[in-house]
């Protein structure tokens, strides 16, 4: 499994900068996560604040995966990314 690293970055959403992370696998960009409030997840089964997959690339991107629900914390987001890196074409 490649080494996963996080780089803090401000992401432009809703007209302003929001806390976010670039996620790199072995130095390659695989995902951009941004912090969302509970208000922004209104209508999900559980309304939570957390981390949203703003953009994904390769196995985490729209060509090979579908947008996952909001993650409660970064660990959960990274677990999803690791699963995607291993899963290839299998849906998850």
């Amino acid at each position, binding site marked *: 499994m490649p080494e996963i690293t996080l780089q803090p970055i401000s992401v432009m959403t*809703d007209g302003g900068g929001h806390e976010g992370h670039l996620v790199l696998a072995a130095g390659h960009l695989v995902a951009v996560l941004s912090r969302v409030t509970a208000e922004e*997840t209104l*209508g999900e*089964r559980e309304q939570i604040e957390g981390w*949203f997959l703003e953009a994904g690339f390769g196995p985490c991107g729209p060509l090979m995966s579908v*947008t996952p629900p*909001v993650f409660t914390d970064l660990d959960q987001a990274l677990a999803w990314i690791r699963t995607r890196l291993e899963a290839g074409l299998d*849906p*998850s």
Partner: protein
Amino acid sequence: MTCMTNPLILKLEQRDQLSDAEKRALENAISRVRVVEADEDIVREGDRPNESSLLLDGFAARYKLVSNGRRQISALHVPGDFLDLHSFLLKTMDHGVLALTTCRIAAVPHATLEKITDEFPHLTRMLWLNTLIDGAIHREWLTAMGRLSATAHMAHLICELYLRLKVVGRAEGDTVQLPITQAELGDTLGLSTVHVNRVLQELRKEGLIRFQGDSLTILDWERLKKVGEFTSTYLSLQNEHR
């Protein structure tokens, strides 16, 4: 809000005149009326109904499930819509229809539909028109889903729902009741709830719409249409001989 006139008659009369005999035939076609609560299935995938369901009040959705409980809503239905007129000829349902709110449903037996097609050629064409409009809406949705931005797609859907509700007497001025959750909008547009929130926020911020509870007001129709690249041709709203 309950309309005294059968909303299907309102919907069809928007497009062409109906004779008194045709209207009577439609009224008499209803064998019973039932109430289906929100989140319950009206018709299930795989069912072989012997009657078609006409929505009198409420909102309903045609849907299909994919893996992990994910769902795509392929059509939203408002009063006056036949939820499964096609089951008369297609027989086996290839998708389900779900009540999004409490729905009042009129059952029209397939045997009665067959009788209408035998005895009322113009009314038969109007029911054909009804399914053709369903098909036109599907084409429009597919185009919007594939080629519009999420914000434009939402604007397009709002324009369409407003007009469809207005035709059946469910609009008060620029306001309609739209008791559809953001999760359901997400399943309709193929968007995450985060994105649904953002695009609605964008349309509100731009002064195009206002939501107060379930009440949706169009503040700037012309700009909303422009943003959604919306033209109503596909809804066949002109009253002409068909």
